[in-house]
């Protein structure tokens, strides 16, 4: 009963919001170029479904490629940092800088470096920058906090640095690393969208470009439809990751 409630409640709430929105637009005769009705957005979503799907696929694959690249780089960096304090200290300023760097500010430079012919590479790089910090710091925090009693056990049996990293620290890091990955996945999607707006310039026609394009033409219903597609993509990604995380944690805990 409770389970059903938590599933139905958000649907009812969103339906009420959309209903209210529709009613306000009717009552005050709000023009469609200012704020389209949800029904009009629904129509735009349906009629543009094939091209929106193609755009969503592009944004999705961009974010995913960036995510995979950053997992490899941040994972290796975290392993190196966990193995050696000097390495960790050397990485720290760069990691913090990456964390506070607005993607928008570096997008023009990255676009130049990627070259005019490869705006897709610029977008992937920027999305990777956006996702780097949570993935790196989640992995590092996990690698640095194994059970102290297990650490003593490894001391007792004279484990080497590599044995500690691979058999104790890496497996101990799983829960915290997953937490970092969850945040990083969301950020890689946001990064892909922002980078597309900043560096795409029409050559990369993902969802962000569709939103901007439609807004420029005052096709607000189309703009909202692309936004809705983006929201569905983000929600779908998070849901998929949550399911994956649950299974991974259940395996890790052994139940």
């Amino acid at each position, binding site marked *: 009963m409770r389970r059903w409630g938590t599933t139905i409640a958000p649907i009812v709430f969103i339906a009420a919001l959309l209903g209210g929105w529709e009613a306000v637009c009717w009552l005050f005769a709000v023009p469609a170029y200012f704020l389209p009705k949800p029904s009009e957005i629904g129509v735009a979503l349906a009629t543009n479904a094939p091209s929106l799907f193609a755009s969503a696929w592009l944004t999705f694959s961009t974010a995913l490629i960036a995510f995979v690249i950053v997992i490899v780089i941040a994972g290796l960096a975290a392993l190196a940092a966990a193995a050696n304090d000097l390495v960790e200290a050397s990485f720290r300023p760069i990691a913090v800088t990456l964390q506070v760097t607005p993607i928008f500010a570096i997008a023009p430079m990255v676009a130049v470096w990627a070259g005019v012919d490869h705006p897709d590479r610029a977008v992937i790089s920027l999305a990777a920058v956006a996702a780097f910090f949570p993935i790196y710091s989640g992995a590092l925090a996990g690698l640095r906090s194994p*059970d102290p*009693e*297990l650490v*003593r*056990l*490894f*001391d*007792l*049996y*004279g*484990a080497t640095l590599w*044995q500690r990293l691979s*058999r*104790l620290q890496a*497996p101990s890091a*799983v829960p915290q690393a997953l937490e970092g990955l969850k945040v990083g996945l969301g950020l890689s999607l946001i990064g892909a969208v922002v980078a597309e707006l900043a560096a795409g310039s029409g050559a990369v026609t993902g969802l962000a470009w569709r939103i901007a394009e439609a807004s420029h033409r005052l096709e607000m219903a189309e703009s909202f439809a692309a936004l809705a597609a983006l929201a569905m993509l983000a929600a779908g990604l998070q849901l998929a990751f949550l399911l994956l995380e649950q299974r991974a944690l259940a*395996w*890790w*805990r*052994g*139940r």
Partner: protein
Amino acid sequence: MAEPAAALDGVEVDYPGRGRALGPIDFRLEAGEIVGLVGPSGCGKSTALRLLAGLEAPTRGKVRRAAGRGETAVVFQSPTLAPWLSAAANVALPLELAGVARKAAREQAAEALRRVGLGGAEKARPAQLSGGMAMRVSLARALVTTPQVLLLDEPFAALDEITRRQLADDVLALWSEQRPAVVFVTHNVEEAVYMASRVVVMTPGPGRIAGQLAVEGPAPRPPQFRTTQGFRDAAERLSAMLHGAMAAA
């Protein structure tokens, strides 16, 4: 006199900010004997154990111990198992860390699990085991390297009375197979008398040796050993020594 299995010679341990934690203390652990170490909490029992395990260095004095990999094994207060590894993989860990091939290590681990009465539980994860079973896995891991010295740091503290007694008998039975020298830390007087052939009483911190008591009787203990006059007398005398040590401090 034969070489001891391990020894503390004039050992003192100071902790920064806390002062003296242990000593001065002289202690010899003979090969194959079981020594119970009792004392009030904070007397440095666990510190003494960590010294013997080589996990800590003394501030002054000398620690003698067999330093080879797997020659000293420790069973901690909690089972200290890796949750992501199966029981067999946990037990095989000391062997694998020492470079034993995975397959051979797993076979020895399965055998060690059989000896502690957990044959068939090789694939179980720690989360699926009861407290007593997890402790047995921990014990199997400690014994899998056939150590010369086995250190037990209040291993039964978190278990219920029936499980404690069962495990005490099991530890003695396992000891009689391999005959390692055992140091058994506890704050339970009866448990110390039941397990040990010699009980060392420590003073409140900084811990020193207040006295010791030899416990007569066969090991492993025969059934109903707890009801014998010898057991009860030893427990009484040990209690009195412990009270004396605490009153003198």
